[in-house]
């Protein structure tokens, strides 16, 4: 907003069309570096962003495997999609998985953020790094290590359950983490909580540090207990941060891929086939480019509406 050119630019004159265009040309020439500097971005963006976005919409009306001649099928892809059992099951699995891991992850992240925000805490950087390392570890590595740890016979989780589980009434043979339809989603949820808590913690920590210190000062003078401070100062002021991490989690869950692809491959059966996996399979397993594009558009639209709703409800709360 503080460019020197803001007032130096040639003024626009209220003349006829031809003059207006000439003036526009003059102004554009005057600002030629603006267009020059943004053009590398826009050229690459046009090829790998804008064109694909429009092409994908067009594709959703075609039947195409990427090799043979595409065929126009109108709304057939959408009709088939709404009758595709696997599509709905994948959405259902995504929803259940999200409900299993997002709430505990956000609560944990908030607790960690509160702890790490304590002024007396020592070794802050060490604690933060510890919770944060999972975020930067390649998903494929995480998924294989967890796959090993979830092993029914030799996995460390079951070894522990076998040795001490009796005390808590757990099955002495251990839990079939990745070998039963019942446990595949909870196993993934454990992995996801481990992997993404640090990311959310860091964002919440930034949110906490943005709260004006004097508010706590005032609350204390008013005799507010620490619990009251948490409920009436911290949490209300963290609302935008909570909204942000919720939306990020929503988007992250819908398009989740690497972790599921490597650890469970969507199985056993289709018990952990999430939408990301379904989409990938349709596109690059079955090469149904048109069908997959239709699915991607429908879900992107739903996610967009949900995001908007989360924003809206939050705003009405604030006002």
């Amino acid at each position, binding site marked *: 907003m503080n460019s020197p050119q803001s007032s130096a630019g040639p003024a626009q004159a209220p003349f006829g069309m031809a003059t207006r265009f000439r003036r526009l040309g003059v102004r554009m020439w005057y600002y030629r570096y603006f267009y020059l500097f943004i053009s590398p971005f826009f050229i690459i963006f046009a090829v*790998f962003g804008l064109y694909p976005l429009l092409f994908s919409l067009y594709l959703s009306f075609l039947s195409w495997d990427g090799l043979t001649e595409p065929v126009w099928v109108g709304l057939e892809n959408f009709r088939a999609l709404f009758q595709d059992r696997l599509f709905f099951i994948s959405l259902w699995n995504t929803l259940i998985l999200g409900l299993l891991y997002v709430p505990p992850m956000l609560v944990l992240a908030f607790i960690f953020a509160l702890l790490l925000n304590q002024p007396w805490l020592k070794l802050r950087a060490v604690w933060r790094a510890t919770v944060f390392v999972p975020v*930067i570890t*390649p998903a494929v590595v995480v998924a294989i290590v967890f796959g090993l740890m979830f092993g029914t016979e030799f996995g460390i989780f079951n070894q522990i359950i076998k040795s001490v589980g009796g005390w808590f009434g757990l099955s002495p043979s251990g839990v079939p983490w990745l070998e039963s339809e019942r446990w595949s989603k909870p196993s993934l949820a454990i992995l996801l909580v481990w992997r993404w808590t640090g990311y959310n913690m860091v964002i919440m920590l930034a949110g906490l540090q943005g709260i004006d210190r004097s508010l706590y000062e005032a609350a204390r003078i008013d005799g507010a207990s*620490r619990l009251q401070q948490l409920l009436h100062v911290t949490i209300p002021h963290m609302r935008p941060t909570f909204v942000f991490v919720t939306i990020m989690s929503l988007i992250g869950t819908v398009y989740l891929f690497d972790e599921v692809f490597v650890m469970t491959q969507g199985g056993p059966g289709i018990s952990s086939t999430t939408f990301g996996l379904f989409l990938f399979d349709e596109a690059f397993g079955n090469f149904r480019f048109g069908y997959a594009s239709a699915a991607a558009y429908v879900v992107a639209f739903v996610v967009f509406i949900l995001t908007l709703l989360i924003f809206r409800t939050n705003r009405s709360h604030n006002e």
Partner: protein
Amino acid sequence: MKSATKTRPGGMSLGDNAAKREKLFLYLMLGLSALAFLVPMYWLVSSALKTQAEIFTSTPSFFPWPPRFENLIAVFDQTPLPRAFFNTTLIAVVHVCLTLFLCSLAGMAFARYPQAPGHRWLFAFVLGTMLIPQAVTMIPVFVVLTNLNLINTYWAMILPGSANAFGIFWMRQYIANNVPGDLYDAAAIDGASEFDTYWRVIIPIARPAMGALGVLALINVWNNLMWAFIVLRTENMTTMPLLIYLLQGEERTPYGLIMAAGLVATLPLIIAFLLFQRNFISGLTAGAVKS
């Protein structure tokens, strides 16, 4: 819990003993959770130092002793890991540099010329594109790369995603807030060309924001399995995540080798994290400024 036992100016808080006990309890909780977060990483390292037989025993040892370095040697010897590491590094370096160049140059332009015709429209357009999920564009991007004969090349990994709308937004905010308008004039009076101004004046000032954006781009490109799986086809083009994925094999998985490769793939990012912690943190919180 927030601002628990906040110190008063010049002194410790009141109830000293209770406060101490509470702190001790919190440290204990923090320590235990930190341990829980480290277990899988520890499992990665310790498994890399075990033989296959040691990995699959009914009494898994937490301390593989003596440590076996066979896996680490074998993974360099018997798998295309050196090549994969080189490929990943090359792709990451070029992708990060390209992203930084595109986003900082355009970000500066948006910050500097708010009066340019079409400025508002173009910037709104950039913001709007942040909402497009990769899932929607992935098939056409694959088709475009096929038509440009870029499948199974480094460019297939480098180019998509380098025109990062969020990156432009991020750079523009930083430059608009940190570069006083006079600075452009001063540079112009000194006879610097527009590009010189960008290169010699703006980039040094925008370094913190570029560090954060670069780190974000680095994590994304270094760890990207799905896209590598789609666009890379031959062994000599493989990246670290792809190599690790493919090592799993059909029948018998060589876990020792995988863990060793996993360690090699993870270490550079951990080292980078320890060196540039601040940048990492702001890179990942960068997204939060949107809301």
